[in-house]
C-alpha cells in the first residue's frame, strides 16, 4: 500500500463515521458513543503500556478525576462544561505529573504495583468525600453546549466524541513518527540504550504517562456530560482492568488498536449482557465478570500480540520512498588532532569485594584510535560503562573535553559528545533500521511534543532522516532502510549500532567489541570504515578481542589485567611486551 492509499482508507473511515447517525438507530449511536469514550482511554494506554512499557492498573482513576472535576464544577458550582474541560485536564494531568514524578523511577512490576495502589486510593477517595456525594455520586450534570445548542441527543454528542477520537488518533500517529515518539518507542527494553543516546528516559516516560492521563481526562469529561451523572463505580480497579483489556486486545502499542479493542470489549460486554441471562438465570452479573476475566486470561496466554498487529500482518507492506536529500543537520566542531579529549584519572570501581577497575589512568587523544585490550574479566566493559556514565566510579575522576563528567548522568555525557555501542547488541528489533539510526539524532534535534504531534517541524525531521540514511549508507546498510532491525544477522546489527552512534555526530566513538560475530570480509570493511572516520578527525576508543583487527588498526593500546592497567603504548611495543604475553598466554616457563 502506498501512503496515498492509506490516506484514502483513513478518509473513507472518517466519512463512514460521519454517516453513521443517518444509518443507525439511537441505540447503536449510544453504543458508539461509549466506544468512542473508552477508545480515548485505551489509546492512552496503548501509548503507555504497549509503547512505553508501563502497565497501568489505575487508568480508570484518571478518568474519574476528570469526571468528578467537571461534575463538581458544572453541577455544583454552575459553571460551563467547557470550563469543566479545562479544570478536568489541569487536575488530571497535574495529579498524573505528581504521581508519575514519584513512581516512574520504579522498575518493572513494582511500578505496576504502585499503579494498583494509587488507583485504589483515588477510587476510595471518591466514595468517601462528602462534597462529592460519597457513594451516591453527583447528579444533575448539564450537557455540553456549543453556542446555544445543547448536545443532548445521542447523535449530537456523537460528533463531538468521535471528533475527539479522530483528532487524537491523527495526533498520536504524528507524534509516534516524530523525534519524541521514537524516543517513546525506544523505552520498552531497558534504560541503558535510551540514556546512551542522550535521551532522558525518565522525562520521556513521564511525558507518556501524563499524555495517557490527558486522554483519560478527555474521556472522563465526555463521560460525565454524556451520562450526566458520576458515581465511584466505573472508576474502581475493575474499570482499570477493562481499559487495560481494551488496549491489549486491540494490540498493545497500536493507536488504532485502542479503538478496535474498545469496540470489541464494549460490543462483547453488550452481547454477554444479552445472552448470559438465557444460559444462567439470576447469576448473569457475576458470570459476566467471570467470563470476561477468563477470556482475558486466555488472551494473555495465547494471543498477547493483539488484533490489529495480527491483522496488519496480512496487509501488504506499506511502500515507502527512501528519505529525500535535505539540508544537513548542524555538526559539532572536532577538536584539533592530538589534544587530550578524554582523561581517566585513578578510576576505581568495586562490586562488593571485587575490584573490577583498580586505579586506572589513561588519555584518549583527539583523532586517534585507542584500543583497550585485556584477557576476559580484565574490567574492559566495566571501564566502558564508567566512561559513558552507565556505572558510577567509586573514586577517581573522568574528564571529557576539558570538563569533569564523573558525576554527570548518562544522558548528559551522551549529549556532550560520547556515542557508544554495546558488547551485547542493544537495538529496538521492532523498529526499522532508519528509526533505529534516527534515535541517534535525538540529541542533535529539538522538535517537541506539539511540534511532533502537529507536524510543525518537518524541515528538521527531513534533515534528520537524510542524515540517518547517509549513516546507513556509510556502514553499508543503505539499501533497505525500512527493514526491521530484528531481521538483521548479528554482524549487521553491530554495524547498525555504529551507524546509530555516528548519527549522534559524536566527538568520541566508544565501541565495545565491534568486530565480534563479523566475517573476515566484514571485518576488513569495518576496519576501513573506522580508518575513514579517523581521517575525518573522529576519535575512537574500542575494546576488541581480535588481535589482528586491533593491531592493524589502532594508534595506541592500553592493556588491562585483573582491573589494573598493565601497560600502554604503540601496537608493536605492546606485542613484544613480556607482561602482556604473560597475561594472555601465561608465564613462559
Amino acid at each position, binding site marked *: 500500500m502506498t501512503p496515498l492509499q492509506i490516506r484514502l482508507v483513513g478518509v473513507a473511515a472518517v466519512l463512514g463515521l460521519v454517516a453513521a447517525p443517518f444509518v443507525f438507530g439511537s441505540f447503536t449511536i449510544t453504543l458508539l458513543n461509549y466506544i468512542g469514550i473508552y477508545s480515548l482511554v485505551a489509546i492512552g494506554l496503548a501509548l503507555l503500556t504497549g509503547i512505553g*512499557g508501563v*502497565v497501568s*492498573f489505575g487508568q480508570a482513576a484518571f478518568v474519574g478525576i476528570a469526571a468528578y472535576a467537571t461534575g463538581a464544577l458544572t453541577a455544583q458550582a454552575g459553571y460551563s462544561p467547557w470550563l469543566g474541560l479545562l479544570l478536568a485536564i489541569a487536575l488530571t494531568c497535574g495529579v498524573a505529573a505528581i504521581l508519575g514524578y*514519584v*513512581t516512574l*523511577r*520504579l*522498575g*518493572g*512490576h*513494582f511500578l*505496576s*504495583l*504502585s499503579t*494498583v*495502589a*494509587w488507583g*485504589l*486510593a483515588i477510587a*476510595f*477517595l471518591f466514595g*468517601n468525600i462528602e462534597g462529592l456525594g460519597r457513594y451516591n455520586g453527583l447528579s444533575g450534570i448539564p450537557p455540553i453546549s456549543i453556542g446555544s445548542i445543547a448536545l443532548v441527543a445521542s447523535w449530537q454528542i456523537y460528533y463531538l466524541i468521535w471528533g475527539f477520537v479522530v483528532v487524537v488518533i491523527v495526533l498520536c500517529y504524528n507524534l509516534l513518527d516524530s523525534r519524541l515518539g521514537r524516543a517513546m518507542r525506544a523505552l*520498552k*527494553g*531497558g*534504560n*541503558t540504550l535510551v540514556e546512551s543516546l542522550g535521551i532522558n528516559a525518565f522525562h520521556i516516560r513521564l511525558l507518556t504517562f501524563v499524555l495517557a492521563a490527558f486522554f483519560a481526562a478527555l474521556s472522563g469529561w465526555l463521560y460525565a456530560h454524556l451520562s450526566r451523572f458520576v458515581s465511584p463505580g466505573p472508576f474502581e*480497579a*475493575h474499570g482499570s*482492568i477493562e481499559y*487495560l*483489556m481494551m488496549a*491489549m486486545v486491540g494490540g498493545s502499542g497500536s493507536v488504532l488498536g485502542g479503538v478496535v479493542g474498545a469496540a470489541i470489549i464494549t460490543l462483547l460486554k453488550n452481547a454477554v449482557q444479552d445472552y448470559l441471562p438465557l444460559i444462567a438465570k439470576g*447469576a448473569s*452479573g*457475576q*458470570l*459476566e*465478570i*467471570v467470563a*470476561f*476475566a*477468563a477470556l*482475558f*486470561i486466555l488472551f*494473555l*496466554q495465547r494471543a*498477547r500480540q493483539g488484533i490489529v498487529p495480527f491483522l496488519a500482518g496480512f496487509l501488504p507492506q506499506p511502500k515507502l520512498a527512501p528519505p529525500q536529500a535535505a539540508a544537513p543537520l548542524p555538526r559539532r566542531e572536532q577538536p584539533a588532532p592530538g589534544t587530550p579529549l578524554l582523561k581517566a584519572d585513578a578510576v576505581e570501581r568495586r562490586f562488593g569485594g571485587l575490584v573490577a577497575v583498580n586505579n586506572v589512568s589513561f588519555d584518549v587523544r583527539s583523532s586517534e584510535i585507542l584500543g583497550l585490550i585485556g584477557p576476559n574479566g580484565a574490567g574492559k566493559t566495566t571501564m566502558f560503562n564508567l566512561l559513558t556514565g552507565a556505572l558510577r566510579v567509586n573514586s577517581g575522576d573522568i574528564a571529557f573535553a576539558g570538563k569533569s563528567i564523573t558525576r554527570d548522568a548518562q544522558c548528559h555525557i551522551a549529549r556532550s559528545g560520547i556515542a557508544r555501542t554495546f558488547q551485547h547488541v542493544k537495538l*529496538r*528489533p*521492532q523498529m526499522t533500521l532508519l528509526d533505529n539510526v534516527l534515535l541517534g539524532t535525538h540529541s542533535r534535534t529539538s522538535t517537541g511534543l506539539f511540534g511532533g504531534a502537529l507536524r510543525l517541524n518537518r524541515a528538521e525531521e527531513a534533515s534528520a532522516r537524510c542524515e540517518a540514511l547517509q549513516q546507513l549508507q556509510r556502514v553499508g546498510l543503505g539499501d533497505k532502510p525500512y527493514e526491521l532491525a530484528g531481521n538483521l544477522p548479528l554482524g549487521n546489527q553491530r554495524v547498525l549500532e555504529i551507524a546509530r552512534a555516528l548519527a549522534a555526530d559524536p566527538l568520541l566513538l566508544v565501541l565495545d567489541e565491534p568486530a565480534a560475530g563479523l566475517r573476515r570480509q566484514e571485518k576488513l570493511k569495518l576496519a576501513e570504515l573506522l580508518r575513514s572516520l579517523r581521517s575525518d578527525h573522529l576519535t575512537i576508543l574500542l575494546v576488541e578481542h581480535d588481535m589482528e583487527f586491533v593491531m592493524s588498526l589502532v594508534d595506541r593500546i592500553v592493556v588491562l589485567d585483573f582491573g589494573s592497567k598493565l601497560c600502554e603504548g604503540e601496537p608493536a611495543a605492546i606485542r613484544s611486551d613480556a607482561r602482556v604475553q604473560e597475561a594472555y598466554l601465561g608465564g613462559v616457563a
Partner: protein
Amino acid sequence: MTGDIAAILGIDGIATGAVYALVAIGTVLIFNVTRVIFIPFGDIAAFTALTLAALDAKQMPGTIGLVVVLACLACLIEVVSLVRAGEARAIPKAIFFYLVLPLLVVAIVWLTMRIDPPAPVRILLALMLIMPIAPLLDRIVYRPIADGTVLLLLTVSVALHFALRGLGLLFFGPEGVRTEPLTSMAIEIAGIHVSGQTVLIVTAALVFSGLLFLFFDFTLTGKALRATAVNRTGARLMGIRPARAGTIAYLLGSLMAGVSGILIAPVNTIFYDSGFLIGLKAFVGAIVGGLTSYPLAALGTLGVGILESFASFESSAFKDVIVFSLLIPILLWRSFTSQHTEEEVEE
C-alpha cells in the same frame, strides 16, 4: 488519644497484622518459587472463612462446587496437553492428581458432614477444602505462561482476582458471615484487656511461620523449594521440577491463607469480596521485604495492621486510602535501597 486507647489500638493492630502476616508469608513464598504475584491469595483467605461459616451452619459450602469445577477444568487441560505432547502414558497419574485427589477431598468433607462433626474437625475440613484451589488455578492459569515476565504474570493475577470475585459471589452469595469465636477466654496484660482470639491469632501466626521455617531448613522438599526460588534453571538441572515446587508452594501458601481466614472470620465480617483488601494489605507488608524476605514481610504486615488500626480510629472512611497511599513511599524506599538489574524487561 490516651495511653489506654493507644494500647488497645496497638494490640488490635498487632492481631490484624498477624492475620495479614500469614497471607504475606504465603505471597512471598509463591513469588519466590514461581515469580507469580498471587493477588488472589486474599480471596483464598476469605473463601476459607465463608467455607467454615457454611460448615458451621450445617450447609454444604460453595467451595465444593468451586473445587469440582476447577478440578475438572485442570484435569481436562492437563490431559489435553499430555496427549499433544505424546505422553499419553502419564494420563492416569494426571487424572489421579488433578481430578481424583480433589474429588476425594470433596467426598471426605461431604461424608464427614453427615455425622455432624465438632468445631475443630469443621476447621480442618474447611482447610482441606480450600487447599486444592490455588494449585488447580496454578495449573489452569499460570502453568501455560510460567516463563513469561513478572509483569505478564501480574496482569494475569489481577484478571484472575476478578474471576475469583465473580465465582465467589456465584458460589457463596452476597451475604457476609462472621463465625463463632474460637475461644471466649480473655486475659489482662498490664491492665489492658486482651481477648483470647487476639492471643490465638498471634500464637497461630508465630507457630505457622515457625513451622514454615523448620520445613525450609530441615526437609529436603523445603530445600528444593528454596533452590527453585534462588535459580529455577539450576534447580531443574539438579532434578527439581519447578512445576512440582510451584504446586507445593501453592499448597503451603493456601494453608497459611486458610488459617488466616479462619482466624479473622470471628473478628471481621467476611464477604465474598473481602479477600481483595486482605490480600493487598498483606501485599503492602510483603513489599517491605521486597517480596523476598519472610521476616521483613511479617514485620511489614504488623506495621500495616497497626497503621490501619490507628487510621480507622482517627478517620475510618479514609483508612484504606491511607494504607494504599503508604505503598508508594514503601516502593520508593525499596527501589532506592535495592539495585535491581535493569535488563530483565528486554523485548
